[in-house]
């Protein structure tokens, strides 16, 4: 596939997102409220535990992790399921299906521009604030490069989870319930709302094998230099984990989509 098509789609996505720049500021504002809530919740948890370190994490560790998780969530969150089901109901999906590109690639690259914008408007500001407030709790070095690689892999994994669920919605023709279930599962099992270190030992082992961790927990560990990610080999093994899941999910969602799309009956007209 010609990279020119992909760059053009990304560029258009950036231009479109910038039209709605106010949205990014609203997101930042909503984050502040959410993080105040998180702050007091975890303060209470640490106060009631009676120790400074819970499950190997200090209060400060937990807060940094959760703040960055929120920032990462704003930047990685996708609306493939919503958009696709809306397009199916309105029948607009036929216009996307008739683009001279694979539907999945077309969709992914249509979103990419938005992620680039959100990265600069929501993730970077949050990251800089955390950096200053915590005085160097985040290592500044090669781990930032490792993190970029990890985030791109996370984006691919997340997109294909979305595609799998969106394809499922082709059959059910109702989206809301399934999407809520998906969001809850991803947020809980990826470490976005509770650090995975807080899970019971057995659950942590199971969750550790699942793909959801590849979306938030792995990039965060790479960024913070934890879980062995401070060395190249350690980071590489985390990338490997993400890449394996990326390949599995790409294969699964492509197969599922190709089988399902033949069954599509586009509404209306």
């Amino acid at each position, binding site marked *: 596939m010609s990279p020119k098509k992909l760059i053009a789609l990304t560029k*258009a996505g950036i231009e479109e997102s910038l039209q709605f720049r106010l949205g990014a500021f609203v997101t930042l504002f909503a984050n502040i409220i959410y993080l105040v809530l998180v702050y007091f919740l975890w303060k209470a948890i640490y106060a009631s535990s009676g120790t400074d370190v819970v499950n190997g994490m200090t209060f400060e560790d937990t807060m940094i992790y959760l703040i960055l998780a929120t920032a990462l969530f704003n930047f990685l969150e996708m609306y493939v399921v919503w958009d696709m089901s809306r397009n199916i109901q309105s029948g607009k999906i*036929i216009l996307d299906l008739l683009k001279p590109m694979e539907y999945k690639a077309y969709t992914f690259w249509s979103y990419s521009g938005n992620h680039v914008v959100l990265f600069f408007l929501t993730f970077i500001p949050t990251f800089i604030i955390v950096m200053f407030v915590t005085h160097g709790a985040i290592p500044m070095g090669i781990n930032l490069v490792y993190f970029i690689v990890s985030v791109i892999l996370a984006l691919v994994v997340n997109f294909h989870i979305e595609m799998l669920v969106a394809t499922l919605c082709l059959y059910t023709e109702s989206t809301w319930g399934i999407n809520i279930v998906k969001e809850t599962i991803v947020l809980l099992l990826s470490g976005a709302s509770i650090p995975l270190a807080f899970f019971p030992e057995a659950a942590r082992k199971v969750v550790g094998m699942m793909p959801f961790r590849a979306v938030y927990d792995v990039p965060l560990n790479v960024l913070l230099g934890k879980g062995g990610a401070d060395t190249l080999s350690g980071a590489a093994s985390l990338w490997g984990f993400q890449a394996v899941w990326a390949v599995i999910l790409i294969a699964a969602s492509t197969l599922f989509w190709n089988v399902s799309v033949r069954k599509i009956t586009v509404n209306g007209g």
Partner: protein
Amino acid sequence: MSEAAILMKDLCKDFKVLNRHEGLKGSIRDLFSRDYKTISAVKDVSLTINKGEIIGYLGPNGAGKSTTIKMMTGVLEPTSGEIIVNGNIPYKDRTRNSERIGVVFGQRSQLWWSLPLIESFNLLRDIYMVKQKDYEDMLELYRSLVDLEPIIKKPVRQMSLGQRTLSDILAAFLHNPDIVFLDEPTIGLDVSMKAKIRDLIAGLNKTKNTTVILTTHDMGDVDALCRRIIIIDKGQKIYDNDIDHLKSYFGSYRTLKLRLADDTWEEHLIDESKEDIMQIILEKQKLSGVKDIQLQEISTEEVIKKIYEGGVA
């Protein structure tokens, strides 16, 4: 001209629909029901469309027009029968088929909502990999056909419906496709905009020899653009010929208008193959006296209306 743009042979499309039951109890039963019924949306349709033709593809709501178009574009796979578009089997290679076709669906836009029109055009140029020279030539052609200046820098979301439809048609022709599908392109437009759109379609068809498949409920579009029309009803092709033949094909209808003695007008739709006009005039003359007579050719609209209502078959 020898090679056909679209070839369909005994094309069928069936849909499986769940038999729904009424009420809460019925809805719960439906959750586990395997009680499907088969609805055939398109039945044994065969047709050949040549390059460069403008086809009026007509039929009442729910006749199977959209289903056929979706099969031609490759979005739906036929249940049985053959279909070849530009030498490709569309559902087997939808992406490749898409490179050579353009689509406009009256109520939906393929343009990027918040971007100026020219940005959408540039993006389509890159997606369809149109050569810069061809692209510029096409824009030049567009400028000669319509006044682009008021819309080219305007974001699509700020456009009027007419401007948006015009833009969507231009977007569909941008990569110089072999076939363009226009699904109700003039729906909701005012008279002058309709005329503009018709001129544009006719102009593009003429200069680029693009095959155009036009579905519409506006007989003005058909009269202005199409020489050949295909009518489909209940999934079957019921007419496929010149528009001129249409009026005589279903009987030689004319409208007879009579002004009676009390100055009221009376209208009669007359099939000249069955009734004699003079006879009717004479009878009326005896009954109530006739002051004035008008004889009108039946409009395409009236013929189509009669066909849809099942008056002829």
